[in-house]
């Protein structure tokens, strides 16, 4: 199993009702698998879009990226810096 910390930011944190959640997924899981697990574990996360922007360990990744034990997955609302 891989334990992944999922972090929510800005509007997504408001929708999820929390800023982070810890989920466990099979060792070969992808970001998409983690999202599925998050929606089960965090009721507010069901309101998140189907394919949010994601970052794994501080870098943007696609939904088919593999996760490892100890990873931090961030769900990023549309970026609006500057």
């Amino acid at each position, binding site marked *: 199993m891989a334990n992944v910390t999922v972090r929510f*930011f800005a509007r997504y944190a408001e929708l999820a009702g929390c800023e982070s959640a810890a989920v466990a997924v099979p060792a070969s899981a992808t970001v998409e698998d983690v999202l599925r697990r998050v929606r089960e574990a965090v009721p507010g996360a069901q309101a998140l879009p189907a*394919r949010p922007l994601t970052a794994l360990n*501080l870098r943007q990744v696609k939904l088919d990226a593999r996760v490892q034990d100890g990873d931090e997955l*961030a769900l990023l609302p549309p970026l*609006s810096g*500057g």
Partner: protein
Amino acid sequence: MTYLTGKPIAVDDILAEVQGPERGGTCVFLGTVRNGPDDGGVTGIEYSAYDAMAQAEIARMLAEARERWPEARVALRHRLGMVPVGEASIGIAAAAPHRDEAFAACRYVIEEVKKRLPVWKKEVRMDGTTTWVDPSGKPVAGGLRDR
């Protein structure tokens, strides 16, 4: 280097980081909080970030600029927290031997910021209401944007 700050952006500080006797062209970009005729009475914008990733992304952008314009130097600060109308949320200074590289490096970094920096803004209005802003600058209406 800490690129994120809760304080007003000090232009002198970012200029000092990039200027040097061999660099004859310097430009500064400031992004300031706006309340234009179509902005609905904005009094300020509350900025929040994924701090660790924002720091890492800015470091990567500046390294990319350095690779593309080796003689240029670029400095950046992004303000977080409540920024009132008229004050800067971002400041970028770029200096190079000649103006073309300075402008190009500065432009590159602000455009990458817009594309990649994990920072979010919530507009605060005179009537006390707040709205998350999407990348096109329009308030997020009912639904959420997908990618």
